[in-house]
C-alpha cells in the first residue's frame, strides 16, 4: 500500500499534482466552450504561436510565462478580429500565421549559441519541474479565469448557442467573444508547463468531447468535463510515475481512453440522460 503513496512523498511531486489538478479543471471548463463553439483549431494555433513568445522571453531575459502570455493574448485577439471581420477564412489565417510564429520560435532558438532551454520540455511539458513560483502563477490565473466564467456564465452560454439572437436581444456578443479568447489564451499558458504545446489542444478538447457524449444539458456537461479532465491530469501524472513515461503524453492518452469509454457508454444506451 505504501508503494502506491510513494509519488506523494516528494515536494516536486506534490507541486506537480496541484498543478495537474488546476490544469485539468481549467482546460476542461474552457474546453466545454471550445467544443461547443468549435474552437479547437484556435486552441492549437494559440499554443503554437506562444512558443515564439517563450523563446523571445528567454533571449530577452524576462519571465517566459510573461512572453508566452503576451504572444498568446495578442494572437487570440488577432483571431477574434479576423473572425469577426470574416474577410479571410479562419482556418487559412491560423494555418499560415501560427505555423509561422512557431517556426520563428524554432528559428530563434536554433541560432542561440548554447541554449539551456530544453525544446522537448516546451513541446511535451515538464510538470515535474513546476516551481513554487509557477504554482503561484497557475493559482492566480486559475482564479481569474474561474471568476470570469462565473461572471459571464449566462452570456457565454447564450452566445455559444445562438450568438445572433443573443446580440439582437442586447448582449455584448463581441466583448464576450474577445474575453473568451483571452481566457482561452491564458488557459493554454497555464497548461503549457504541464502538457506542452503539442498536447495542450488535446486537453482542451478531449474531456469536454467525452462529456458531450454523455450529457444533454450544458451545466452537467461542464461538470462532467471537469471531472474527466481532473481524472486525466491527476491520474495520468500518477500513472506516469510508475510507468516511467512522459507525464504530458500519459495524461493525454488517459484522457483519450476516457473519451472512448464515454463513446462506449453512450452506445450501450446510458448516454444523454443527465
Amino acid at each position: 500500500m505504501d508503494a502506491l503513496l510513494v509519488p506523494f512523498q516528494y515536494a516536486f511531486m506534490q507541486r506537480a499534482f496541484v498543478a495537474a489538478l488546476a490544469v485539468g479543471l481549467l482546460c476542461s471548463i474552457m474546453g466545454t466552450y471550445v467544443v461547443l463553439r468549435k474552437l479547437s483549431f484556435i486552441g492549437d494555433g494559440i499554443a503554437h504561436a506562444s512558443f515564439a513568445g517563450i523563446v523571445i522571453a528567454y533571449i530577452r531575459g524576462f519571465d517566459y510565462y510573461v512572453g508566452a502570455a503576451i504572444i498568446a493574448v495578442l494572437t487570440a485577439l488577432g483571431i477574434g478580429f479576423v473572425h469577426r471581420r470574416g474577410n479571410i477564412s479562419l482556418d487559412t489565417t491560423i494555418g499560415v500565421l501560427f505555423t509561422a510564429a512557431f517556426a520563428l520560435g524554432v528559428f530563434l532558438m536554433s541560432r542561440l549559441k548554447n541554449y539551456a532551454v530544453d525544446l522537448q520540455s516546451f513541446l511535451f511539458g515538464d510538470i515535474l519541474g513546476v516551481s513554487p513560483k509557477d504554482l503561484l502563477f497557475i493559482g492566480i490565473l486559475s482564479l481569474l479565469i474561474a471568476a470570469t466564467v462565473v461572471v459571464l456564465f449566462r452570456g457565454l452560454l447564450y452566445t455559444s448557442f445562438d450568438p445572433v439572437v443573443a446580440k439582437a436581444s442586447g448582449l455584448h456578443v463581441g466583448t464576450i467573444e474577445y474575453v473568451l479568447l483571452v481566457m482561452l489564451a491564458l488557459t493554454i499558458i497555464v497548461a503549457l508547463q504541464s502538457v506542452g504545446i503539442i498536447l495542450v489542444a488535446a486537453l482542451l478538447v478531449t474531456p469536454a468531447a467525452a462529456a458531450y457524449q454523455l450529457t444533454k444539458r450544458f451545466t452537467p456537461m461542464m461538470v462532467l468535463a471537469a471531472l474527466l479532465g481532473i481524472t486525466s491530469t491527476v491520474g495520468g501524472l500518477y500513472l506516469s510515475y510508475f510507468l516511467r513515461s512522459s507525464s504530458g503524453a500519459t495524461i493525454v492518452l488517459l484522457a483519450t481512453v476516457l473519451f472512448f469509454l464515454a463513446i462506449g457508454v453512450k452506445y450501450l444506451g446510458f448516454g444523454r440522460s443527465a
Partner: protein
Amino acid sequence: MNAPGGAVAVRIEHLIVRYGRALALDGVTFDLHFGEALGIVGPNGSGKSTLLKSIAGLLTPASGEISVLGAQPRDVPPGALAYVPQIEAADWSFPATVWDVVAMGRFPRLHFWQHFGISDRDAVKEALQAVKMYELRDRHISELSGGQQQRVFVARAIAQRPRLLLLDEPTTGVDAETEEALRRVVRSLVDDGLPVLMTTHDLDRVGEWFDRLLVLDRKVLALGRPEEVVESGAYTSIREHAHTHGHVRMT
C-alpha cells in the same frame, strides 16, 4: 416608458442596405405602431430578412434612419427587442433542453449576481404553455420536429417579455397546429399592445394574422389593410415577375 397604444414603436426612413455592391433594400420607409401586427410579404431575395436584421441591429445600413423604441438599433436596452430567426440558423445539437433554450430569453435582463428566480421561472413556464410546449420542457432540442423547434424559438422571445417582437418566417414549414398556436399567441400579445413585425411568403390567412400588410421587393410596393393589399395584386405581380425572370438575389 410605456408608450400609449398606437404610438410609433419603429420608424424607418429611406433605409438603404447593401451587401457589397448588391442592393438589398432600396429606400424603405414605414412606421410600426404599438399594438399592431405588421406583415411583410415578398419573394425570396426581396430583403425581408435583411429588414428585420437591420431593425435588430445585426446589420449596418448604408444610409437612412431607423428608430427602434426611440433609440438607435444598437442602443436599444437589453431585453427590449426580441428577434426570432429562421430555425435553420441554430445549432440543434447543442446540449440544452426545451426549458434551457426558453430560459435564455431571461438572460439579457439578468445581471450575473442575480439569481434565476421565481419570476423568471414563471415567465419561462407561461411562454412554454402559450406555445403548447410545456409538456416537452425536459426534451433535448435535437429531438424536436421543425414545428416544435419554431415554437421553442417563439417561446424564448415571449419569455423575454420584450417591447418589440420581430419574427422571420415563423410559419414556413410548420404544421397547421403550430401555425394556429403561433397565430393565437401573436394576436394576444398584439392585443396587449406589443408591436409585432413578421415576415412570411404565404398570402393565406394574412387577414387573420396582421393589421397591416407590406409588400416588399427591395422597395415598399404596397402598404395597407391586408385585404386591400391582396386585392391590389401588388404581391402576385412581383411573384410572377420573379418566377418568369428567375432572378436570384441575396436574402
